[in-house]
């Protein structure tokens, strides 16, 4: 009965109540989205590389090595000798290895020189997936090229399109390997990793396009055509880094130590998980800032509700006096106002969650097809439930402010509301 009365009273103020509800709903939707973004960014970040036990490069620092070898960020300072790679990759503890050579690009996207091991052993994602082809196949001929999903989409490339690799990493590089054009033979499925933004060629091709180059410039007077290059010895002399998969994870630390103490040249082996963790420490500031901002949005929503409840309270002093006269106790009136705030917050939570699911549902195909980010439309996570509970609690606490005001009014006004 009393609930019905409270409901009618709320309906009487439906426009302001509805506005409050929508404000809270939007802020909740934002909070959930930011949280989802955080979780998925974190997950995809840590899943950039899965199943790789060690990443090896010239001695720099673990972060620079991780950045240029895995994330395609920054410049590799030095390369390492092919012979070192040969020796280490044939060690007993090593199951597989992927060589990587970096330094060239195509229209802002990095070109990676590697071999077939890349397709056989590079794993990413929670399920340790291998790369798969949306179209075509891995490189077979010397001038074949495989392109990542996002790079293909951004550049509008299809199978068979010609690609000229530019020397160096600058977007506006004028020194092109235009004498040795490549042909796209494979387009990868999106992975949600930096591979999407990469172009892959073989180490032999890398060697071929650099036959007539030394130290970053074309040798004057030397010109080797694309077909002539096929007759040369195309064994690479050096590579930038390599990834190792071991037979047993127990060997990891032992191998890491022996690589770090490698005699022939200064090398460094890093554990990708540890390095990712280090990098995430830096990035998590941004993550926390995002969360803080969305918390502020929720706070703004609740403040809006407080403003509406407080201003309506002034108009409701008569209503409260009438209810008091017919026997409503101050405690009941306090409960009523708090209950109203709780109900508005709950409504906002439900509407906000619904909006959020609609948002996820509407973007999930786009994200999966174009970005390789697979959103799961499941029940809210524990973390999200905790966030929602925190919002609900805050709503009730905020509701206590006007409720105590109403309580005070009913005691001081008695039967004669001051208007």
């Amino acid at each position, binding site marked *: *009965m*009393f609930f019905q*009365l409270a409901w*009618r*009273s709320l*309906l*009487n103020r439906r426009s302001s109540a509805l506005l409050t509800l929508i404000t809270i709903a939007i802020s909740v939707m934002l909070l959930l989205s930011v949280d989802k973004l955080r979780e998925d960014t974190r997950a995809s970040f840590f899943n950039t590389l899965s199943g790789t036990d060690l990443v090896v490069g010239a001695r720099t620092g673990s972060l620079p090595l991780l950045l240029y070898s895995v994330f395609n960020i920054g410049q590799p300072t030095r390369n390492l000798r092919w012979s070192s790679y040969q020796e280490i990759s044939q060690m007993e503890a090593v199951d597989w290895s992927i060589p990587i050579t970096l330094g060239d690009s195509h229209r802002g996207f990095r070109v990676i020189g590697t071999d077939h091991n890349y397709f056989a052993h590079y794993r990413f994602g929670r399920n340790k997936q291998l790369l798969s082809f949306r179209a075509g196949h891995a490189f077979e001929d010397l001038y074949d090229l495989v392109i990542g999903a996002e790079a293909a989409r951004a550049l509008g490339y299809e199978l068979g399109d010609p690609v000229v690799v530019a020397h160096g990493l600058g977007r506006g590089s004028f020194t092109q390997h235009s004498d040795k054009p490549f042909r796209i033979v494979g387009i990868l499925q999106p992975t949600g990793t930096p591979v999407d933004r990469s172009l892959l060629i073989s180490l032999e091709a890398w060697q071929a396009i650099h036959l007539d180059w030394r130290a970053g410039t074309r040798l004057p007077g030397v010109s080797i055509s694309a077909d002539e290059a096929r007759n040369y010895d195309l064994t690479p002399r050096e590579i930038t880094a390599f990834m190792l998969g071991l037979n047993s994870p127990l060997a990891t630390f032992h191998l890491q130590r022996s690589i770090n103490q490698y005699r022939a040249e200064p090398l460094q082996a890093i554990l990708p998980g540890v390095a990712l963790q280090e990098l995430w420490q830096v990035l998590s500031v941004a993550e926390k800032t995002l969360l803080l901002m969305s918390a502020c949005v929720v706070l703004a929503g609740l403040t809006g509700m407080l403003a509406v409840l407080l201003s309506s309270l002034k108009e409701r002093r*008569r*209503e409260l*006096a*009438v209810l*008091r*006269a*017919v*026997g*409503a*106790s*101050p*405690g009941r009136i306090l409960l009523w106002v708090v209950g109203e705030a709780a109900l508005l917050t709950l409504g906002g939570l439900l509407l906000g969650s619904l909006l959020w699911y609609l948002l996820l549902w509407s973007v999930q195909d786009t994200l999966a097809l174009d970005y390789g980010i697979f959103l799961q439309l499941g029940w809210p996570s524990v973390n999200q439930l905790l966030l929602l509970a925190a919002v609900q609690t805050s709503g009730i606490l905020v509701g206590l402010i006007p409720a105590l005001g109403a309580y005070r009014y009913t*005691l001081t006004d*008695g*039967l*004669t*509301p001051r*208007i």
Partner: protein
Amino acid sequence: MSLSRPVIEIEQLIFAWPKHPPVLDLPNLSIQAGEQVFLRGPSGIGKSTLLNLLGGLITPQQGQIRLLGQPISTWRQSRRDRFRADHLGILFQQFNLLPYLSLLENTLLPCQFSALRKQRALNEHASLAASAQALLEPLQLGELLHTTRPVTTLSIGQQQRVAAARALIGQPEILLADEPTSALDADTRDLFIELLLSLCRLHQTTLVFVSHDLSLSTHFDRVLDLNQMNRCSGVT
């Protein structure tokens, strides 16, 4: 009134708002069942304070108030609230009605808060609606009951009569009216008082009618002048 018993009793009452000197200091006062008392006094003399004391919203610092023989001024607030819901009808100057309830729902509002009054209303009539109708018809509101007009569109005189019906539904023993006619013009005022008094007489309701307008006092059995009763009046 052959079988009279005191319905309202005040014993040496002193009341002061917190951190203020006393505003009310009353000698013994007794009002019998079915009496219709006109309580007059200029504004600021403590009429509203006395009504709040009688309604059990506040309690005196000294002395006692007994309603229907119960020492309500010694009770906890929740018990006083329940007593008010069961036994008291209250009528304000204006803005008596909840704008989001219909005329009938406004009239039946006390039955939501008091099972006793609901039961009493049902004892005499087949339904709550019939009970409301039995009050609204003598108040000349019977026709309005069948319209869906929002109560806010009623005239002030009509609104006050709906409020009177609400105060009397379920036959409370006591009706406290705080200047219920002050917003009415002369014609509707006399009509309102006549209707109110006849209904109270019919239901044997004890009426305390507060007003500063002495011209209304001719309608009542008994006139009390708060200005003379209150021993604090000289101080303020």
